């Protein structure tokens, strides 16, 4: 699929994504806790969603007609919090308080506490179903908003993901777009070795999805995929995004150990320098 993106816009998106990556590192470093690997793998997609794709209003986070995002892989909350802060849902300073008792930025997304969080998630496998509920409600109430769900590749080992997939296709939820973040790693090792959930494409096609495979770090492919998803009628869309866990920080890339570990001061400085060099 060919999709031409204006160079200025492409550069802007890359700069924004780099800033989101800096924010993620800042959050996790300050907390000395959290999940950088999978946050960095979804950074480009979540940046595109909030900056280009989704119809949202940071000044009115509960706006009834807004597009919704459910971060089903809730442990990568640092990426969501970074993009919400950069969009102005809450002050950037809050990011330094990730996972602290006096902060509304909990370890996993909490819709009651954090402005802009559309669904409480964190227990894997539940978020995709909730997104289906939002999409079904749009159909029932004749609303035009769209619902996006970001699902982890490891998370797709949960049976409820496939219950939700069945549901989305059965009720022809063409207003939902599921993004499978295929970064290839989970806590115990490579996804293919722990419990191989692939092939995603033929499985999801068999479940009744319109399937689009992309490089989840290529903004032109990301843009094209979301544009295509909106044209699909009568069936849900799954975007299978091949990504790199730890993307943007050389020593974190494709390393299982960075799933849920925070960088020390020295590692943090190195990581920040690497990302700043790209800006």
């Amino acid at each position, binding site marked *: 699929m060919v999709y031409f993106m204006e160079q200025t816009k492409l550069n802007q998106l890359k700069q924004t994504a780099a800033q989101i990556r800096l924010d993620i590192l800042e959050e996790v470093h300050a907390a000395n806790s959290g999940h950088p690997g999978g946050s960095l793998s979804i950074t480009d997609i979540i940046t595109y969603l909030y900056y280009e794709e989704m119809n949202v209003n940071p000044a009115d986070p509960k706006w009834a007609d807004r597009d919704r995002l459910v971060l089903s892989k809730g442990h990568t909350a640092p990426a969501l919090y970074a993009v919400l802060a950069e969009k102005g849902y809450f002050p950037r300073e809050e990011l330094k308080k990730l996972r602290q008792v006096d902060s509304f930025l909990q370890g996993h997304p*909490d819709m009651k506490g954090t402005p802009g969080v559309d*669904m409480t998630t964190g227990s894997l496998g539940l978020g995709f179903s909730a997104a*289906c509920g939002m999409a*079904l*409600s749009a159909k029932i109430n004749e609303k035009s908003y769209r619902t996006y769900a970001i699902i982890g590749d490891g998370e797709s080992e949960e049976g409820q993901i496939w219950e939700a997939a069945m*549901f989305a296709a*059965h009720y022809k939820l063409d207003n939902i777009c599921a993004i499978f973040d295929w970064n290839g790693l989970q806590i115990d090792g490579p996804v293919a070795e722990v419990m191989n959930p692939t092939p995603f494409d033929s499985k999801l096609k068999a479940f009744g999805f319109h399937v689009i495979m992309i490089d989840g770090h290529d903004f032109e492919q990301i843009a094209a995929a979301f544009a295509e998803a909106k044209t699909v009628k009568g069936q849900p869309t799954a975007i299978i995004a091949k990504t790199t866990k730890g993307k943007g920080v050389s020593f974190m890339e494709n390393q299982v150990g960075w799933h849920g570990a925070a960088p020390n001061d020295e590692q943090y400085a190195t990581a920040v320098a690497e990302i700043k060099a790209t800006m």
Partner: protein
Amino acid sequence: MAEKLATREAYGNALAEFGDKYDFVVLDADLAAATKTGTFKKKFPERFFDCGIAEGNMISVAAGIATTGTVVFASSFAMFAAGRAFEPIRNSIGYPHLNVKIGATHAGITVGEDGATHQCNEDIALMRTIPGMTIINPADATEARAAVEAAIKFQGPVYMRFGRFAVPTLFDKDTYNFEIGKGVQMVDGKDVTIVATGLMVHMAIDAAKVLAERGISARVINIHTIKPIDREIILKAAAETGAIVTAEEHSIIGGLGSAVSEVVCEGCPVPVVRVGVEDQYGHSGKVPPLLEMYGLTTENIVAKAEAAIALKK
């Protein structure tokens, strides 16, 4: 003899009745014919969604619907709602305190012939541990109907527990005043109090009559809302009668008996003796012999009431 109707029937009828008055949707997991949500489906097919045999998904879908401001009922058997889908209820509905009404039917051993895998004696215990969950276990068809309307008007998650077996109708639909969290005194008495819920309420009333013949004055309280429980009516009964028997079609662990014991121990310690399923699984059978087998009888309530009185200092 009073009319008899299963609370699940009343649930289905109430959904269909209130579908005209209130805007809500109903989900089921391939049990609409049994949970009686089928009654609603027949009248409002466009507001009914079958989720298939996938209860975890149904519960989280309900949560997603609730985030958009639409009231939603999600139904299955108690075993598969509270049991199978416990964690989705806890994390998708309970923690974000979403406005989902869980209609759990076929609770307790009165499921009958299907037997132990389907007889959920643990659901109240499970639901009670979820912060902010309201639990309603109606005693008859009138109370079930009133509970459905109260749940629709109530903001927050509600677990409603209904039975398969037809039970006597105790209350008059036109005059009964149902209030979430308020116990109902059915019989006054001074020697002992029987605190009952659900199916056991009519047996508790019969037990009070038997006790009266033996010269014992028993108070009977119907606790339809197990959480938040009516502390006031229980503590008053403890202070005034000095002994309590609880009666429920549920495990004696974690249900009404536990809830009442907690209130009494902390507020007005008096003997509490529990009637319920005594840490066992169910069994296939017709309902009357099952009730005998598990001690869910008027006779057992009477015996336990006498035991509670004997424990008074």
